[in-house]
């Protein structure tokens, strides 16, 4: 059994300084939990995008919750550059660990399999390698003369975040074909999940839904959050609010604009009450 709680209480379970895993914007991001983290005032997070991020990372960066960002890219996609990320890197307030999509997937799979590193093809010759002291290029360790290969160390997030379309009373969550969320949940020490709807019955025992279900074993906390991915979309439930995201991309081009967005959309009543 995984205890059910509310989103604010989930946010309390994330310690300052934690290594947190963020799904990409198209893959069931628990935005209400991200906002709750900002309201809780979490600090010094090291965020790993799996393998890219957008709104979730940008809000955390703008709100001063992130110390280090590791990603293959941070972008608002069709809405353009991620404004807080861009500003943070350009003014030096954010430490960016540049990576590449398959390196992040592979490093999470290393944790999933409990090994300290994994090999990855390609990449050698990219300047990314030059700036990653934790990566290592070695001569074929099998001794087969297959040339040089990159080894990347395992990434083991302290906490992974996910917003699931369905969850059940046993603590299982359903994410359909978004299998990167399986990998994140397996790789992370624990996963905090919000969900859209409660499923009656045991998701792991359903012959069809079980194929898209992450079992309760991996889930450390669970809270219902209706429309909890907005303004991002939840495939099969609702689309992304592109007008909102475009407006954010524009407003947050300055820190003042970001702060106004934050006060209005995230801190809300809390900011009012505190003033």
């Amino acid at each position: 059994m995984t205890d059910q709680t509310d989103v604010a209480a989930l946010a309390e379970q994330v310690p300052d300084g934690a290594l947190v895993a963020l799904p990409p914007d198209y893959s069931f991001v628990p935005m209400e939990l991200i906002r709750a983290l900002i309201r809780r005032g979490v600090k010094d997070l090291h965020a790993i995008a799996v393998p890219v991020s957008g709104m979730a990372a940008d809000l955390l960066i703008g709100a001063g919750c992130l110390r280090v960002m590791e990603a293959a890219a941070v972008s608002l996609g069709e809405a353009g550059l991620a404004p807080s990320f861009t500003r943070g890197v350009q003014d030096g307030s954010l430490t960016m660990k540049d990576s590449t999509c398959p390196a992040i997937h592979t490093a999470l799979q290393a944790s999933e399999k409990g090994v300290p590193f994994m090999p990855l093809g390609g990449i050698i010759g990219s300047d990314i390698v030059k700036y990653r002291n934790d990566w290592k290029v070695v001569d074929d360790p099998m001794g087969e003369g297959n040339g040089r290969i990159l080894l990347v160390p395992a990434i083991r997030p302290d906490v992974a975040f996910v917003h699931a379309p369905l969850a059940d009373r046993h603590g299982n969550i359903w994410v359909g074909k978004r299998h990167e969320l399986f990998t994140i949940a397996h790789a992370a020490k624990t996963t905090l999940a919000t969900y859209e709807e409660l499923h009656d019955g045991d998701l792991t025992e359903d012959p069809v839904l079980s194929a898209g279900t992450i079992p309760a074993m991996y889930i450390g906390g669970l809270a219902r959050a209706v429309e909890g991915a907005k303004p991002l979309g939840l495939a099969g439930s609702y689309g992304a609010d592109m007008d909102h995201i475009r407006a954010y991309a524009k407003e947050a081009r300055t820190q003042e604009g970001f702060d106004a967005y934050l006060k209005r959309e995230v801190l809300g009543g809390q900011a009012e009450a505190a003033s």
Partner: protein
Amino acid sequence: MADYSSEEFLISVITGLLPEKGNAAVGAASPVPGSAVLLKRELTGGALRASLIQGTANNPFTDGGRELFDAAGQGRIDVFFLGGVQIDGQANLNLVGTGAYPALERRFPGSFGSPYMYFTVPNVILFRPEHTRRVFVEKVDFISAPGVSPPDVHRIGGPKALVTELCLMSFDRDKGRFRLESVHPGHSVEEVRDNTGFDFDVPDNVPTTAEPSDEMLGVLRSKIGREIAGTYPDFAERVLGYRAEMTA
């Protein structure tokens, strides 16, 4: 010859570069390559398979974000598209930013999967409409993905062609150099040279890039608008005149 938009022309140029069968994948925010791939799929009766990574329509992958990269590593992806903030004469790509890393003057999103796809996909088509010396530089500020590799690094894939608003170039991996293949109608070799910051090979006779046929435009407008709308509704409407009634 029918009237056509610049996007329709570029779709046609890319379509002409695609193989008759295999798997072509298209990354995020790439409606022009996406349309070309769907068009070629239509023209080959499905023998060329299409995967649009962004969105759920025309995206057959079911094993999460890593499946595209894994499939490329397995040698199953025959065609992919890359671009860059900067591209240099050795086909090095920069998707990270300009200035001295890490203290960049202008930061861009990041390298995405470029240094992996560039090594694993045999036919990488570089697509960068803006043809200026700001983009096509002597040497990129940051190598997200190198154009060529030494022999002790296993590499199957790499750059095949470059499509811009001015011309089509091919890339010779042994020489590590681009070669001008054709110049688009209304443009000249001199214009290409003036706007390119790196040296490249120019044959004695440079043909003009073929224009889209009426037949191709007909298929594009009648069938591909509807398909691409599932991923890029704005583009489908603006460029291909297809208004989606509802998009998921």
